[in-house]
C-alpha cells in the first residue's frame, strides 16, 4: 500500500530524512579540502606514486602546488 513507507520510517519526519540527505550531498559535493579528506586521499596518491617512474615524476611536479593546501588543511587558515 501507499503508506508503507510511513510505517517504515516510524517517527522520523521528512525533515529528518531531508537533513541527512542534505548533509550527505554537502559532504559529497564539497570543494573544501579539510584534513580528514586530504588524509583519505593519501593512500590513492601513494598507490599512484608506486605505479611507475613517470607517475612518480608527475606527482612530484605537483608537490609545490600541494604544500600550501596541506598547510591550509592542517592549520585551517587560508594563505594569501
Amino acid at each position, binding site marked *: 500500500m501507499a503508506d508503507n513507507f*510511513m510505517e517504515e520510517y516510524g517517527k522520523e519526519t*521528512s525533515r529528518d530524512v531531508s537533513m541527512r*540527505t542534505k548533509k550527505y*550531498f554537502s559532504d559529497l559535493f564539497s570543494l573544501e579540502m579539510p584534513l580528514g579528506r586530504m588524509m583519505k586521499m593519501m*593512500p*590513492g596518491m601513494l598507490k599512484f606514486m608506486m605505479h611507475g617512474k613517470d607517475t612518480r615524476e608527475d606527482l612530484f611536479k605537483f608537490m609545490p602546488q600541494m604544500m600550501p593546501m596541506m598547510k591550509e588543511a592542517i592549520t585551517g587558515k587560508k594563505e594569501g
Partner: protein
Amino acid sequence: MLEQVKDWDDDFYETFKPIAMGFVNEAEKCLQCGKCTGQCPAAAVTPSYNPRKIIRDLVYGNVKRVLSSVELWQCFFCSGCYSVCPMDINFPFFVFMFRLAAMNEGYGWEDVKQLEGYAEKSYLKDGITVSTFERNPFVMDNIGDISKIRVEAGLPPERTVSPRGIAEINMISDLSGMTAFMKQIGGVELLDCTTCTDEQAKRCKTKPMPSKVGKIKTHHRYYNYGEPGGKKNAEAR
C-alpha cells in the same frame, strides 16, 4: 496511515538546490501537466512509475516517499521527459541525485550491487566498462571469439588501455571516494524486510545506514506511487 502535510519538509527543495550543484534546478517550474509521463517508456510498461509525481514530491518535500520507493529505480534515463518538457526540467538528473540519496538512506543497494562488476572488475581494472565476456550461450556459440573478428576487421585482437591510463582512473577513483564506495557495495548484505527478525528490524529503523564500511543492510522498497502492474499483483491483499 493518513498522510500529514506537516510531515513534508517545506524547505527541502529550496535548501537542497544550492547544495546539489545545479542537478535539481527548475523543478519549481513544474506545471504538473503530465507530458513527461505521457511519453515515458518506463511508465508505459509499469504505470506506477510516474516522473510527474516524483517532481511533485521533490518540490513539496515528501522526501521519505521518494527515497523509499521502488519507482525511483525504474527510470530508463532516456531523457524523453526532458526533450518534451515545456519548462525544460531535466528530470533524469533528479533521479540520479535521488538514487544517491536513497542509497544513503539504505535503499536500492541490491540493484547497485549487480552493477558492481562493471565498475570494479571492468572499469577500474581494464579501463573499459563493457568487457568481451558473454554469458548467453547462444551468443557465445554464434559469435565465438571476438578477438578473431577484431583481427579480421583490421583491429588489434584486443582493445587495451595503457597501464598508465588505468593507474590514472584508479587514482581518480581513490581520490574521489569511489573506491571506498565500492567497498561498501561489496559488503552489501541482501536482507529482506519481510523475513528479517525483530532485532534486525529495530536496528534498521534506528540506524538507517551503519557507518561501518563493509556491512550495509539494504531496506525493502515499496511501491509508493501506485500498485505494480501485472496479473501476479492483481489480487487484493
